[in-house]
């Protein structure tokens, strides 16, 4: 099978039971994406597939022929951080760091969704989804952080969202 991962072509022959997460971590050595629950409950495994955020533990590799997968390693690197990565460092949007790659990929995907005007559960006016703190919190609630950096995560995302606007 063929995948494009972080811009690089990859040819892999995965077990039909292999999740995208295990493909990344166990077969390709891309351990930036984390396994927190393997049940789609915590969000630590969030990556971007064809630009949209997805729990990579809940989707099988065999479902993604020719898809473009971006992981936290593909967003930026030490010395050349993505603005979201830099904002997480500046605002201390993490502690142990284990949920962090998922939070960052999720935040990048979420800002794209918000930019397209997609509403959320807390959107009062479906025609204008303004990215308030409540909106950010709601849209990021699929990513659990047991260290509970939530207020700092919201600060980091708000800053990046402001720059995007």
């Amino acid at each position, binding site marked *: 099978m063929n995948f494009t991962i972080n811009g690089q072509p990859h040819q892999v022959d995965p077990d039909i039971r292999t999740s995208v997460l295990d493909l990344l971590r166990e077969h390709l050595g891309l351990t930036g994406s984390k396994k*927190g629950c393997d*049940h789609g409950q915590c969000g630590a495994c969030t990556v971007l597939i064809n630009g949209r955020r997805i729990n990579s533990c809940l989707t099988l590799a065999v479902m993604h022929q020719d898809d473009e997968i971006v992981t936290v390693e593909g967003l930026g690197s*030490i010395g050349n951080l993505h603005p979201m990565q*830099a904002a997480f460092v500046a605002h201390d949007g*993490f502690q142990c*760091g284990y949920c962090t790659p998922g939070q960052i990929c999720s935040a990048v995907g979420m800002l794209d969704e918000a930019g397209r005007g997609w509403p959320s559960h807390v959107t009062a006016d479906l025609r204008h989804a303004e990215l308030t703190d409540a909106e950010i919190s709601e849209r990021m609630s699929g990513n*659990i952080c047991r260290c509970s950096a939530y207020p700092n995560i919201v600060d980091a995302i708000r800053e990046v969202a402001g720059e995007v606007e």
Partner: protein
Amino acid sequence: MSDSANNDKLMLTMDKPHPSSLLDTGVQGVIGKPLARVDGPKKVTGAATYAAEYQFDNLAHGVLVGSTIGKGRVVSIDADAVRAIPGVIDVITDFERFIRNSQQGGKTDAPAQGVRDVAYFGQIIAIVIAESFEVARDAALRLPVAYEREEGVFEFSMQLERDYDLPPNNTPAHAEQGDLENAMREAAVTVDSTYTTPSQNSAAMEPHASIATWKDGALTLYGSYQMPTSDAKQLAKALGVAADTVRIISRYVGGGFGSKLGIAPESVAAAIAAKRLGRPVKAVMSRPQVFEATVRRSNTSQRMRLAATAEGKITGIGHETTASNLEGENFFEPAGISTHFLYVGEHRLISHDLVRMNWGLSGSMRAPGEAVGLLGLECAMDELAYALQMDPIALRRLNEPERDPEKNVPFSSRSLMQTLDEGANRFGWDKRHAKPGTQREGEWLIGMGVAAAARSNLLMESSAKVSIHPDSSVTVSSAMTDIGTGSYTILTQVAAEVLGVPMEQVKMELGDTSDVPAAGSGGSWGAASSGSAVYLACEKLRAELAKALGVDGDALTLMDGMASANGESKPIGKLVGDGIEAVGTIKPGKQEKEFTQASYGAHFAEVAVNAVTGETRVRRMLGVFAAGRILNEKTARSQCLGGMTFGIGSALTEDLIHDTNTGKVVNHDLAEYHVAVNADVPQLEVIFLPERDVHANPIHAKGIGELGVCGAGAAIANAVYNATGIRVRDFPMTLDKLLDQLPVM
């Protein structure tokens, strides 16, 4: 102070106060600053390597098998039934050496071993090894195991026989002073309430994981552990090998909160399997296994009694806790730990007993004792304030002790009232409606609550080695860990401040037992213990630099990598020849007996309770804390945010539920065990009051990692009462416990 200074060692036992600190005279200007984490760039790019992420050729994948009965015996495991599955390598168990449960933190012996007898549902009994994770998981699910079931104790009940004969656990199991019964009889106002708290799970985001590799009879285990120094000893004992043949590497730990203090079952299983197969074995617990087979915070039942005069002066305090644990395990949840010293009262009874049950091991989870004990004590104080028709802060002021009310020794530092007063001002406490249920916004009932925070301060023996290289760079190495607490960053700051070098010039090497031993991360002792060890090593090196420059230490200024004295200035690297190094070691001493040491704070919460659905939302929360020197305002604040959020979870949602027929944890995942998510947490505010504690350690810092959870849930519970007039004494305060008592719309 009883220092012993050898050539390259400096050891300090805290027998006397340490009034001066080089952190106050340093001019590098990094200590205390809200600096970003030095390990941040690695963590946000996925470059930080956690236990299960080390790469090995020939790595075999292990999946653990848990028992599907709650009490009984394994009769047989039919390994042949799965060996034929392509890719399966072997099914491995060791009925003698596999560990029944995790070990408690800091112990140096093996935990309970032997897994033929099943003591709780989910106990790890075997590991299936295969060439891939998918195959191992499939075979583990299909592995036939025959059991003999026995009757177990699966439901907590105060009617069950209780174990009264327990050793101390940071606090005596039983302590009595005066005559509480009589004080209750004679008091003008009393409270006598029983609070219950459920079992909880640390639920760190990284599941427990180990990769075991053997070479020449020595084991290297890449594990997710908080205290590698003692964990390596536990592991060696469990395996029956010499302590110096076991090395644990825990460079990054994806959260611990107590659950990774001692070794967990996956470590021994991986080590035994790797030895038998002659290749590296990786074993990662599934999320349900983390809930079932690591460690839980015990449920508690706490009878709170307060006796007071008509003016509100407390004459008697009773805090009687019953918790649960496995047969043979002596850890009890020390819920009364801060009740010993928080308030005055001549007549006191603080006790802890255990009910023996077939639920998974109970042990330390963030702030063992205070986290649930202050739910009891601080809600009872709120009850007393209402009974007296008194402001809860005024009640605490009236009952503020000048000395430890039991030990009759001074407090090392105590800013409880200052934190309450500062918090009251900032939070707008004067706008609180004292009468419950009188503030309303539409269908929401609004209330405010307050609670004190207290967490005993601990110092643990810890060492660190610091080296200065000819290029003026500095290396700090120690078996210390950073579990998200900020160790990498604050230890860098301590070294940079004392040696006067820029942060970027300090290299950190943590989490490896081949370096000097350390206290590890737990009990909020990490920064103070490990930071003091780094401080002492640097103090020794500073003296060496002064000597090399031919001046007294007092005359030496260290800044930006330059050593200056008497108008002369040299790069420190030019003063060290081929390089110098020193090991610093801190040890607890008489100061912890001669002074009661604790961190303090105040929590303020504003909640909205929906009058129709009973849903509680935390709208605002403020924590004001005083914990000695704050080493890094940014990472310290984050620790407090995390603690306060644990408080939200314990007050409103977290409840580990055991099936009453089998003891199985029925909500053994993150969908059903409800930790707070982003939308549950408002923008929390954290304030630190300046404080120094010269009795605690040479860096004058006290613990901060657990203080944030202590009392946080009580402030929310008291706010719910203020909003609704409903006193829920059974945590968590889920909406069903409010619904039938809510006022009619």
